[in-house]
């Protein structure tokens, strides 16, 4: 898929509302502020973004299912730590096999580190043997800003009722060392287990670690 086409399609597909609302949010706070619309303990804001296939995917369509959001940038050393160790793929398989929807989001702007076309994104999934439900392209950064995603990897868990129950790091070892995967406390796995058991998530918010999301 050609890049200009995907952008046009994106704008058409997402429709006015999401874009206008998000743009207003961003414009109202030109100098950042991480306090985004998404808040742990509250309904996760709905969004629509194009999948690598070109089909628009919206969070709202997964109501009744647990959803994981994973912000990624394949060139970021922290992301590489979790993919090259197989940690991220294992977690994806573990989750999706239990009926969890796994959305991988890429918010790198064109020309920035981690930016990929739909075809490149699919190729990355293949070559890394990744197992997300779908990869969403968020080149304008709309969804990223809506969720206050600052890092790659930055992880979110939405429960069956559509409430955001976890936001933050993948685990408690904020390093790039692959060896640190072993024995780390994986917050996402813990959150998914809690949600599956209808328990409150014990650690609902953590400091995400990694590279900054390369927004435009």
């Amino acid at each position, binding site marked *: 898929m050609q890049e200009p086409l995907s952008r046009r399609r994106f704008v058409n597909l997402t429709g006015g509302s999401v874009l206008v609302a998000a743009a207003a949010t961003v414009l109202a706070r030109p100098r*950042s502020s991480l306090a985004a619309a998404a808040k742990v303990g509250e309904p996760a804001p709905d969004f629509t973004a194009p999948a690598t296939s070109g089909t628009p995917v919206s969070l709202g369509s997964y109501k009744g299912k647990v959803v994981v959001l994973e912000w990624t940038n394949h060139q970021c050393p922290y992301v590489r730590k979790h993919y090259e160790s197989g940690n991220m793929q294992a977690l994806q398989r573990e989750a999706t096999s239990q009926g969890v929807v796994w959305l991988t989001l890429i918010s790198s702007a064109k020309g920035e580190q981690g930016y990929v076309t739909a075809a490149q994104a699919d190729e990355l999934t293949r070559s890394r043997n990744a197992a997300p439900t779908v990869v969403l392209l968020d080149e304008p950064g709309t969804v990223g800003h809506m969720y206050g995603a600052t*890092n790659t990897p930055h992880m979110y868990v939405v429960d069956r009722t559509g409430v955001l129950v976890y936001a933050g790091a993948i685990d408690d070892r904020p390093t790039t060392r692959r060896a640190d995967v072993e024995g780390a406390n994986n917050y996402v796995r813990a959150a998914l287990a809690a949600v599956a058991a209808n328990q409150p998530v014990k650690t609902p918010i953590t400091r995400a670690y990694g590279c900054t999301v390369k927004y435009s």
Partner: protein
Amino acid sequence: MAIRRLAAAPRMTLLAALPLAVAVFIGLLAGPANAAAPRVSVSLISETASIEPGASLWVGLRQRIEPGWHTYWLNPGDSGESPTIDWKLPPGWQAGPIVWPLPERLPVGPVMSYGYTGEVVLLTQLTAPASQPVGAPVTLRGHASWLVCEKTCIPEEADVALTLPAIAAKPADGPGAAAIERARRTVPSPSPWPASFEATPETVTLRVAAPGLRADRIAEVWFLPLRWGLIDHAAPQEATIGERGITVRVARGLLPEAAGAPADGVLVLRERLDQGPVSQAFAIRAIPSGVRVAGPGLSLLAALGLALAGGLILNLMPCVLPVLSVKVLALVGHASDARLVMPRHGLAYTAGVLVSFAVLASALIGLRAGGAQIGWGFQLQSPTVVTLLAYVLFALALSLSGLLVIGAALAGLGHDLASRPGYTGSFFTGALATVAATPCTAPFMGVATGYALTQPPLTGLLVFEAVGLGLALPYLLLSLMPAWRRLLPRPGPWMVRLSQVLAFPLYASVAWLVWVVSRQAGPDGVAFVLAGLLLIAFAAWLHHGARAAAPGRRRLASGVALASVAAAIALGPLVASGPWAAPSRPEPGATGTRSEPWSPRRVAELQAQGKPVFVNFTAAWCITCLVNERVALRSPAVAEAFARKGVVYLKADWTTQSPEIAAALGSFGRSGVPLYVVYPPRGGPAVAVEPRVLPQILSESILIEAVDKS
């Protein structure tokens, strides 16, 4: 300083490594070489040229960072990672934590990073074992890893090493001394000011009680938290500098529980000086509002108990004892009659104490809520109040001497208690006892009133009322228990003599209050008080003499007496308001240990110099303080102990109002003087040590022991 680069960044290709290898080779040929990672070159430098067995030395990991790139601080901000050093030291050696120079704020899109650009030296204190053999060189090794980012990030690592000779002598400065000293100067120093914060779901308001800063000189204020979660790092910070200190308002961070714990961080002040802007960084610990600042946690029940005990002890203080004794004398005289009259007097007296405590405490709590930095005993910071108190005690003393018979309404101390019930008099005696008691902050009371002022107003009031109840209790019990009264000696002429004797502690109190005025308002203030006392004496004589005179002359005498009293009272405000009102000065010619005036800055300076500090928070109107100074602080043995340990003695004089001192007292959970604090010397630039609070009643041995432990 030979450093070999062992590990390359993952991205480095063989091709890229080739020129590097050449560079390292050339470097090796040229002498000491530094590891040359692609974006950051690191080296290990030492402050000293040699190692002394058993001694500590400062080393630094110097990062030279390629332009446009940055490495990270202890709190990297919203992304990134702080560097680590994994020390591989010879046996017996010890390494401290990294001591971090002040970072820069590096906004990247919607996130904030805290880190370093250009060059930074991360400091570490290493300690050699006493058994370190001398003669042979020692190689200190470590493995450093760090993340370096521009827009993209690269993790890098390197082995670093440093070889120094071990010599059994004080080492000379090494080649790294200047760089380490430069870095040390930017390490935040412990803040001399107490700090607190208040969090709403949207904002965090940080308050640093640094009064007296000149707002026009401060160009910038920043708060950098040590941990993620309390504040939105990237949000703008709105700083205001007022009389009471610095307030920084910033958007709330994402972690809800962060608002419930003390927030450690660095406060950066950029000050405009004539020679250009200067940044100063202070390590602060901000306490969530409503939480006790320091000292042992106290339950309400314990606070009430302490307050009651403190109130009881107040009865024995020289300013209260005469008042109480005279009340008891009245009981003696009428031990047998009027079964109902006695309890009523007791209750009236108690009511007087409780009401006046309520009035004082409400005023104190209200003024503090309005922002005034005051504490218990605040009323005596006004020379006017001290003057009026001197008048009242003087009039009382005259009455006890038999030179003045005051109506029941004023004091209720007359000898004709039975003929005139004078409940009003008893009430006012209670009020008088309260007013007279304030300069004597009894032991226990400091902790209890300090607690009271950090609590919600009603709880605070309750604690003050417990103090009042303690003060009223002995008289109340005596008045309620006829059986106990029988234990008192039989009435007789001795009572007149005793009351005359008891006048003298009151005269002494008056003399002391005049001295307090001299400290607060200088010699001219003293002249006004003495003139006022003269007028009171004159009025007393007129009043006394006119009792037997004809009605017409009596009216005239009474009129003149009243005018004299009015004139004396009118002098009260003059004591305070005139241009002669001078701030108190350090006492000249004090014997024993020499003191310097206290300031938060001086404490920080001395701590930075590694000196132990003793701070005496005192006031001329605080009798406990004066007793402590005479008994303990001025003793030669204490002076000797101070000299032996190199303790610097700082005196914070609260005789007149000082928001700075009130804030410092507050940081120890106190609201009044005396307070004695020992700051042990600091271990290193960023190693904060907890100051030790000493008991309110000092003895030589307590002081010497505290100093020896420091």
